């Protein structure tokens, strides 16, 4: 296989990498770029642990070929906080104890941010359906939904 050279933007930084043609974006983020905050829970798009945005659109990075992101803007969990200032969603996840083991947390945060970027005032039902592609086995989702609703409220005030 001939490797492909890809120029892209990751979390605002111009980034280049070489990848195999069949390598996924998830594998490149984790194995080549050292961004291991994006997790693999299933590799088949069923758990949402690998959620990232590409040009603002929420996707499972396990279902994207790395070669496809040439010229795109990729955003991962590592780019969510502003320096040492947590994003309100990150802070609310901590305040509400919305994580237990924490493996699904990056995916939930990236997905929840994509929701609030579009809909600053979601109902509980909208939050639950938007996040239905993110599996959490520890929390029963209760505290996650509360954290997202509370973060939305705070962001509307700001």
């Amino acid at each position, binding site marked *: *296989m*001939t490797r*492909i050279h890809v120029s892209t933007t990751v979390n605002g930084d111009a980034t280049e990498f070489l990848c*195999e*043609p*069949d390598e*996924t974006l998830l594998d490149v983020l984790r194995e080549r770029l050292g961004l291991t905050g994006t997790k693999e829970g299933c*590799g*088949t*798009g*069923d758990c*949402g642990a690998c*959620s990232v945005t*590409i040009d603002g*659109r*929420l*996707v*499972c990075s*396990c*279902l*994207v*070929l790395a*070669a*496809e992101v*040439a010229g795109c803007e990729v955003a991962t969990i590592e780019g969510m906080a502003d320096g040492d200032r947590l994003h309100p969603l990150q802070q609310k996840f901590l305040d509400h104890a919305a994580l237990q083991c924490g493996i699904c947390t990056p995916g939930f945060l990236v*997905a929840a941010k*994509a*929701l609030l970027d579009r809909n600053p005032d979601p109902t509980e039902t909208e939050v639950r*359906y*938007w*996040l*239905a*592609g*993110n599996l959490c086995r520890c929390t029963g989702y209760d505290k996650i939904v509360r954290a997202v609703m509370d973060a939305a409220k705070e962001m509307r005030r700001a």
Partner: protein
Amino acid sequence: MRYEAPRSLKSAVALMAGARGSAHILAGGTDLLVRMRSGYAEPDLIVDIKHIDGMKSVVAEKGGWRIGAAVSGAEIGEHKGLCRAWPGVVEAANLIGSTQIQGRATMTGNLCNASPAADSVPALVAAGATVRIAGPKGRRDVAVEKVPTGPGKTSLKKGEIIASVFLPKRPARSGDAYLRFTPRSEMDIAVVGVGVSLSVNTKGVCTAARVALGAVAPTVLLVEPAARALVGTTLDETALEALAAACSKACRPIDDKRGTVEYRIRVAGVLARRAALIAYERAGGRK
């Protein structure tokens, strides 16, 4: 494996037609990458069609809408014109997978994957949609129901690519709806899916109808007796009973991990009634 991202349909067709070994189109990739991971697909060539003009756009055409093959479910859901004209098709497209999957998955991919349980297909068939196929011998338009020929199989020939889906002009006083049954509220594959599209006259009498079923046979079923049960009625109880019976009768399902034969037959009728009533209300027939 080779990855190509051609800029024109012509070169995409040429790549696919000239490919040796197994060649796959990549649009959303939400089926293809899963199959690659599990080892079911081992492509020698992947042709990414997203950089081809028109593949990512929804354009008005003859009062209807032409949807590029790489338009994602999320983009369909955000398109006001499509939502107004064909709410059932939009609902069906938006039921494919999670928010994340919606960011990538396309109706054309859903069709070409040829799963009997594909959500968007019954809605497209009910809507009377066609696809435009580009191939080495030029282009042709084909009714959606002619594309899948069996689980995982399509009528596309070597080198052929579906470039777009066309939803016709919605007649006056018409409505469509799609319902599916899944054990979970989301993230699931249809156990049964029903698409209904119908028109009514000013008195609320149904003048035309198309009813399509998914996940109850090797391919999507366009059930004409079910349509006939509706035409000429105001969707009264007798008509709905006849509709349900016609749908159940048309089913040729299998027992599998997602449902039983008995269950699918029964629920096809139940969902058909419910979908028909939604479509009827959307058509202005009220209930």
